[in-house]
């Protein structure tokens, strides 16, 4: 009766394509390369990472990812709720409209923001046109951390909306009625029932936004004009111009451990619920 053997091909697959590559990264991460190209076990790269420059990058990456995750939550939560409301028509079309932007190349979308947000961009031109700002004045949207956080929010907002929406829309409406029946007004219904019950969706959304935000390098590169250097940029540079794969792997390992630790705090049910997010 047991169909567990259907999973065996995948388990073999996962060993080869998930576990082995990770071991490769692990090996690079805990070694340094000798002059002859040989790998020697060493924790020098860990020591190197735990210096002010890299800890600063790590701290900044965590901070920006956290801020943008928080903003995604603030913007996405009401949107997810509205998308479940009874009175909304064409709900499934609306949900698709949330998903579709993710189907366009991230780089193209992000470059496209430049056209709007540059000092000489369309928005500043418009503001000049309506006289909000002087003729050669501008508001500088880009080239700083604000722009990076903006870009993260833009790119990852759907990842916040979808899991929250999926949890809230599965919520049993009679529970809300029960709360009203027991004397809870709108505020209390939200505070005591809807919000606590949507926490699995929220934490799923937080992971789905936080993880890509902390590893991104394209967004920070394009929108901040490389003024903001995040962990993703630093890792990427090690595999590129720096040429030190060992240090790059070390940083990846540290990042992965951080993520895995946070994964341990996520119940299995939630890991599984993330799959349902797309449609």
């Amino acid at each position, binding site marked *: 009766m047991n169909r567990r053997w259907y999973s065996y091909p995948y388990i073999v697959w996962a060993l080869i394509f998930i576990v082995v590559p990770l071991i490769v990264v692990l090996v690079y991460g805990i070694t340094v390369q000798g002059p002859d190209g040989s790998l020697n076990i060493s924790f020098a790269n860990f020591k190197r990472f735990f210096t002010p420059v890299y800890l600063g990058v790590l701290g900044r990456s965590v901070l920006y990812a956290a801020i943008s995750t928080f903003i995604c939550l603030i913007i996405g939560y009401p949107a997810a709720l509205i998308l479940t409301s009874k009175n909304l028509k064409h709900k499934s079309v609306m949900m698709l409209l949330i998903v579709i932007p993710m189907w366009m190349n991230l780089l193209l979308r992000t470059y496209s923001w430049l056209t709007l947000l540059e000092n000489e961009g369309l928005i500043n031109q418009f503001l000049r046109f309506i006289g909000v700002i002087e003729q050669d004045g501008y508001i500088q949207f880009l080239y700083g951390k604000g722009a990076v956080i903006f870009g993260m929010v833009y790119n990852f907002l759907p990842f916040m909306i979808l899991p929250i929406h999926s949890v809230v829309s599965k919520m*049993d409406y*009679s*529970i809300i*009625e*029960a*709360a*009203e*029946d*027991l*004397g*809870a*007004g709108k505020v*209390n219904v939200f505070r*005591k*029932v809807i919000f*606590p*019950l949507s*926490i699995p969706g929220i934490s799923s959304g937080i992971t789905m936004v936080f993880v890509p935000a902390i590893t991104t390098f394209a967004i920070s590169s394009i929108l901040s004009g490389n003024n903001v250097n995040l962990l993703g940029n630093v890792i990427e540079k090690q595999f590129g111009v720096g040429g030190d794969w060992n240090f790059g792997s070390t940083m990846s390992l540290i990042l992965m451990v951080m993520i895995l630790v946070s994964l341990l705090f996520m119940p299995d049910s939630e890991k599984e619920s993330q799959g349902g997010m797309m449609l």
Partner: protein
Amino acid sequence: MSNAIIKLENISKSFGEEDILENFSVEIARHEFVTILGPSGCGKTTTLRLIGGFELPDSGRILFDGEDITSLPPYKRRLNTVFQKYALFPHMNVFDNVAFGLSIKKVDKKIMKEKVSDVLKLVNLKGFENRNISSLSGGQQQRIAIARALVNEPEVLLLDEPLGALDLKLRQEMQLELKKIQTKLGITFIYVTHDQEEALTMSDEIIVMNDGQIQQKGTPVDIYNEPKNAFVAGFIGESNIIDGIMKKDLLVQFAGQDFVCLDSGFDENELVDVVIRPEDIKFDKENGRIKGTVQSVVFKGVHYEMHIRAENFDWIVHSTAMEPEGSTVFLDLYPNDIHIMRKVAEE
């Protein structure tokens, strides 16, 4: 009538094209256990949701203690509901579920604790305060749902098929318990079910509904013994319902025979429904006027149930005496076991 705690006046309610209730009026007396009984889809839940404030009527008024509450939101009504599927808060433990209403009212912590503990004792779940909702059995969850409503000391408690999901044994226990609680606290219960036995067992008054209309309202005994029409008769307990002709007052013809009965006030030769309970049919070898053949015999514990074919009608007969399958039997009826009912126009 000042004794009515809830009054529905000319309520109409439709969903889209479908009219669920039309010009529906009813009064619920204070302190009574009133059951709304009817087949699936007849509008029972809708009626309860109107009273609870979860639906607004299209027209008509709802009075609570004489005061118009038609458009009051649910959280301002002095009544509570026990939902069909419990609707317990899955993220709270038993204590927090039960204390929910009190915490909304910002009742003092100590008093809250006492009240919760008292009401849990009432539903026989003392000491369950810290249990997780999902660790409770169906019957226990149901009792928590009841406790959660009761702790607010509502004047009226609405219960929508609260026992529907439980198995027979548990259902019977809970019926007794609910009845006890109602008697003890003197709260008005409005109880919805489609289980006839349950309605008979628990109610002070039964409202039989069909198709959004009240068929009959009365005590269990009234309704069982004096059903107003064939629908009520058929719905409350098993019945033989046979076409008859009212020859004159106190005389009815059916099954090819004339029978003396206790009913009068019909037109001469009016076509009527004759309703006879299976347990009221007697076997009488000598005088029995209806001759039939036993088609099947089923042992039911207390009695045997026999299907007996006589001319064109299949009689259901309950009796402690068993007549073997295939045998020929003679049936008879006493006048007071024959119930005559006007035919309903439609259906």
